[in-house]
């Protein structure tokens, strides 16, 4: 297995990696699956489903973070909803960092009924040129849509002509929504385009470390903590892709290493840079919690050749933070939690909660990658299977709210920890305190871990909001459903294609 940048269209995670969106069982089933080579845990379809998400929003949302890129969406107006979704947010980030974002644009061909019959590739060309003339971005991404995909618009066919006219890379993104049920496919599509159309071969080595993530560590001043750690080993971070520039992306091949805060998110780029340009991809646990951070820090230091310096840093941090953390852990011990997150963050946070002494009742992943593009299994999942003190329920569920409400209502945990917009409120509706790990650096390093432990304790201690809310709202589910087993509406295996 390897990443092939010559591929015109990147296949979905389902077909490349065998990733799945439906499964019910326990952590030990995954252990057996790993033992049998990844074929035992099979995908289950559903007779009932709720609105999930598609690769388009992820791919184009990520690429929209690049300060001097432009997106041209070839589809009806609703597909360009991403432009509304991201509006102002990346501006606020760029402003906070003092970076220029005046060349960014997100335009749309606003396809109509006639366009679905006759196509509108000529209009697309004009919109690309007009977008260039207005904003002078350094790259233009063409966002495909379900409509452009089904009617067979030839995006590749116009690239050469366009590049001749405007003199910058034009990169098609085949993020048609129907092509993958796993929105994380969109992350790969974005990174495939960055690798294929922007990154240049290295001219010289730098002391930069590529950090692929969602933000720039801006919340609660985490950025200074990251800098402190990187300073200790003499490297500089290049944050990707939010608020990055095309020039920064061109030089990714010169970096000393690539790391990511979320392996579900950043593996494709890390593996691609490693296999194409030899930039080491640090396949450590993500830097969350004490175990995760130390593994990440040590493996990064090893690549850079500064292990002694990192050990000194770790020692110093441990001495200051661990005694404080122990005190909070005493009060968290024995509390029960349900977790719902993407597969990377979820396994990661299960480990952290176990570090704190909480009992995991159920871990629910928005999808499951049994491997990445290099054939390796996710490090955090391997670690969790090996170290978990108990076997607990594990299910895969692409934002199927009716399933996780069924689970929560029966488990009645002390706390629900999630990571997706619009998930936390549902636990609170039935009186369960909930925390959304919105910030990827939430439990980064020792300071972040202490902060997260303290936040959890605060949430468990003062349950007022969730309890008050639960007395005044009702769930949109029938009594019948809440009494079923949560996987009662899975299709029987024979029907699954």
């Amino acid at each position: 297995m390897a990443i092939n940048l010559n591929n015109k269209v990147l296949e979905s995670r389902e077909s490349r990696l065998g990733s799945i969106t439906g499964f019910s069982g326990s952590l030990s089933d995954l252990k057996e699956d790993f033992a049998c080579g990844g074929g035992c845990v099979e995908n289950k379809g559903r007779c009932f489903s709720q609105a999930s998400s598609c690769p388009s929003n992820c791919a184009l949302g990520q690429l929209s973070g690049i300060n001097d890129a432009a997106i041209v969406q070839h589809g009806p107006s609703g597909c360009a909803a991403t432009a509304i979704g991201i509006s102002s947010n990346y501006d606020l980030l760029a402003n906070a960092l003092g970076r220029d974002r005046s060349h960014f644009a997100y335009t749309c061909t606003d396809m109509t009924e006639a366009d679905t019959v006759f196509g509108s590739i000529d209009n697309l060309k004009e919109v690309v040129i007009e977008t260039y003339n207005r904003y002078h971005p350094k790259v233009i991404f063409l966002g495909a849509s379900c409509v452009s995909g089904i009617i067979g618009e030839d995006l590749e066919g116009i690239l050469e002509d366009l590049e001749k006219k405007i003199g910058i890379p034009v990169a098609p993104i085949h993020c048609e929504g129907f092509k993958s049920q796993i929105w994380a496919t969109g992350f790969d599509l974005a990174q495939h385009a960055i690798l294929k159309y922007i990154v240049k071969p290295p001219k010289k080595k730098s002391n930069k470390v590529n950090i692929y993530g969602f933000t720039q560590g801006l919340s609660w001043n985490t950025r200074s903590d990251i800098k402190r750690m990187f300073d200790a080993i003499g490297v500089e971070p290049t944050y990707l892709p939010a608020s990055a520039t095309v020039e920064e992306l061109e030089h990714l091949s010169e970096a000393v290493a690539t790391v990511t805060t979320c392996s579900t998110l950043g593996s494709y780029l890390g593996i691609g840079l490693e296999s194409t340009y030899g930039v080491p991809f640090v396949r450590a646990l993500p830097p969350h919690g004490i175990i995760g951070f130390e593994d990440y820090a040590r493996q990064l230091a090893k690549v850079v050749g500064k292990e002694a310096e990192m050990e000194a840093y770790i020692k110093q941090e441990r001495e200051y933070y661990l005694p404080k953390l122990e005190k909070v852990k005493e009060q968290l011990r024995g509390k029960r939690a349900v977790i719902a997150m993407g597969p990377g963050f979820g396994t990661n946070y299960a480990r952290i909660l176990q570090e704190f002494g909480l009992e995991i009742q159920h871990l629910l992943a928005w999808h499951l990658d049994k491997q990445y593009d290099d054939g390796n299994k996710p490090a955090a999942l391997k670690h969790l299977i090996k170290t978990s003190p108990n076997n607990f329920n594990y299910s895969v569920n692409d934002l199927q709210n009716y399933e996780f409400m069924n689970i929560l209502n029966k488990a009645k945990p002390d706390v629900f920890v999630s990571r997706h917009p619009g998930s936390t409120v549902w636990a609170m509706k039935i009186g369960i305190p909930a925390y959304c790990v919105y910030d990827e650096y939430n439990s980064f390093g020792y300071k972040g871990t202490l902060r997260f432990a303290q936040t959890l304790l605060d949430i468990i201690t003062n349950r007022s909001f969730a309890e008050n809310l639960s007395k005044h709202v009702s769930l949109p589910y029938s009594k019948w459903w809440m009494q079923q087993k949560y996987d009662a509406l899975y299709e029987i295996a024979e029907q699954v294609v």
Partner: protein
Amino acid sequence: MSKILDEPRYVCALGAMQTVQAINRAIPIIHAGPGCASKLAGSIAGTTGDSGYLNPQTYPCTNIGQNEVVFGGEDKLRNIIENSLKVMDGDLFVVLSGCTVEIVGDDIDQVVSEFQNEEKPVISVATAGFKGTNLQGHEWVINEIINQYLSRKPQKEVIKGLVNIWGPVPSYDPFWLGNIRELENLVRELGLTPNSIFGEFRGLENVDKVPQAEFNLLVSPWIGLENVKLLKEKFDTPYLHYPTLPIGAHETSAFLRAVGDFAGLDKKQIELIVDKHEKEYYYYLERSVDIFFENRTASKKFTTVTTAANALAVSKFLVNDLGLMPNTQFITEGVPEEYEELVSGYFKEFNYGIQANVVFSTDGYKIHAQIEKEDFAGAPLIIGSIFEKKLARKLDGNFVCISVPIKEKVILHSSYVGYHGGLKLLEDIFTSVYQSFN
């Protein structure tokens, strides 16, 4: 001439899912790709979509994939409707179709007709994204509720004084809840009984009463005209089309008089109500005249970059109530061509014969370029969406964000409608006076 949407300010017809969700205990069933609902919700209603009894992650959805694109999605739709009726606790189920299934050619009406005899009503609306905007989708949803649900029920007698209120579009008008409630309050003050179908605790009970109204009150320049005409055709209910969402004393008093006249109410009674409110309103204004007129930064001329409804409401208030002068008004929600003349006509009816130039455009770049060229005789006041914030800063102007994408303030139940709404808008406009050197 290329067709370009630059800085999109509306979404596609499937965005009408917000209209369904706004009817308490109505459940949208999305027959479309897996990402449509979350994308649309993230844009119109904020980052999470509107949470409430439902949020978009709870909408039943067929999550169309490769298989359905090749073999059609009818079986999948049948399955999802059947199980929606078992799993979801709702009163009305509305199937909304997206681009993919309409191009593939699913016979959605056929599948939906199989559920005609279910205990709960199931209807469908064709809302493919390429067919229109979320505003048109909003009208189509209401039309199909009339055609497929209300028209099939036995007709009941008209209830004296019952007035259906239409106009503000759920979620797309960020102030929709407060605006509808304030319109209800005004109608109630006249001694009439308001009936609106959107928002908390209204639901199917109010939908069912729609055919029994004495008249329909549409407060909107164009959205909803199709609906009140259809209600006239089906139930012979007369309608009052009042184009201006009333803000402040001048417009709200005019609104009360117009509705009162249409309902045949006693003029003296109406004047008593108007008088009471105007007294209170001008009490507050009198106290604050120095803030409005004694500073170095407030604007004398304004522009709006927003929906026809907001542009008309705000400009009537700023001209007829506050005495400002209008520069060009940019209308951005993709008004269908057949309504353009009607809508621009409303901007020719200000006090003293003042008129405003109206431009219909979906191209933010050109709109901003024109605003930069226009003369505001000082700091411009720009009322628009978050896309105008940077422009306002660049032009050293004043800015109030009132339409999608809003991303500027949290709106729980506030409103700019009515006498109190006018005071609230003044607070928001003149807050900037205190935020700059004076």
